[in-house]
């Protein structure tokens, strides 16, 4: 689809900002940046190397928060799917797709950092460790979710299918997690990617700061992505209105009330 920003720009190129930012995102964004800096400092400089892993533990300061956020993204998609099915409010649909996309990004990052950590540790980029394998499977599930959203021609039907898929993420995640865990435990003692639970001091701080920074970045991204999805819905509604109006004009009828729930009409 060609970029129509020039032909239907309602502001005639005036300087009103057109973006998904707001006071909320500025606050979130700045806090995220600050937290990221502190995180980098703690993770890379101020915290000591681990007794066993050496400096490699610093990768886990990225890997662990990112993995948790991956599950958070999937969880948001599931919850939003359920809420959409109950009320059919478009906002939940937008949240579901935002959560899924963030999930995919953070999932990819989890797999990437996990592999990079694995190479010097086990001398291989991939090992059928329970956590990595589950994550890979769930990543594919989320990618499948996004694929279904992308191919569906009719927006209404697409949201129904996607929300069912989103809901199914919940049992899928649980079943996959436990079966892969059990499967690997037959061959390995408990998963090796767990951080030493007695982690303390500056290392614990680094991890906590990582969680905070990650959560802030995630929240900031989520707001923006949600707004993008919301805008897509608006655009679709406008295109639909325009198409309906055109049909009515063809039929010699006067343009009727729009199908959208918005109040402001284009000038």
């Amino acid at each position, binding site marked *: 689809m060609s970029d129509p920003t020039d032909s239907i720009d309602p502001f005639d190129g005036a300087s009103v900002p057109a973006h998904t930012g707001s006071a909320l995102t500025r606050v979130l964004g700045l806090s995220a940046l600050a937290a990221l800096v502190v995180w980098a400092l703690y993770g*890379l400089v101020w915290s000591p190397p681990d007794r066993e892993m050496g400096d490699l533990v610093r990768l886990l300061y990225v890997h662990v928060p990112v993995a948790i956020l991956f599950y958070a993204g999937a969880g948001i998609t599931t919850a939003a799917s359920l809420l959409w099915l109950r009320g059919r409010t478009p906002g939940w649909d937008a949240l579901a797709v935002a959560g899924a996309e963030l999930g995919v990004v953070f999932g990819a990052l989890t797999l990437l950092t996990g592999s990079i*950590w694995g190479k010097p540790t086990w001398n291989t980029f991939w090992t059928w460790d329970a956590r990595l394998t589950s994550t890979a499977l769930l990543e594919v599930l989320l990618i499948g979710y996004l694929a279904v959203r992308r191919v569906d021609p009719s927006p209404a039907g697409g949201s129904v299918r996607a929300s069912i898929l989103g809901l199914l993420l919940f049992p899928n995640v649980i079943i996959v997690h436990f079966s892969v865990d059990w499967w690997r435990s037959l061959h390995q003692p408990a998963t090796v990617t767990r951080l030493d639970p007695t982690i303390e001091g500056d290392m614990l701080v680094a991890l906590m700061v990582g969680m905070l920074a990650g959560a802030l970045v995630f929240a900031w991204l989520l707001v923006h992505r949600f707004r993008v999805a919301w805008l897509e819905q608006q655009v679709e509604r406008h295109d639909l209105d325009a198409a309906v109006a055109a049909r009515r004009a063809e039929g010699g009828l006067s343009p009727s009330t729009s199908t959208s729930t918005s109040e402001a009409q284009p000038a």
Partner: protein
Amino acid sequence: MSTATTILAMSDGGYLAAGWLGAIVLVGGYALMTLRRGRKLSRRVPEGERRWS
């Protein structure tokens, strides 16, 4: 760039750099993509209908 050299000098520094840089690139790239999509779409929606400022 002394920080960079300190990091690279650590054991497995190359992996560390790859991991952290990868994170920045991936998340940063996605952030830029999303912001750009936001701008493009915002231009197509009349101002009255945007609910944030």
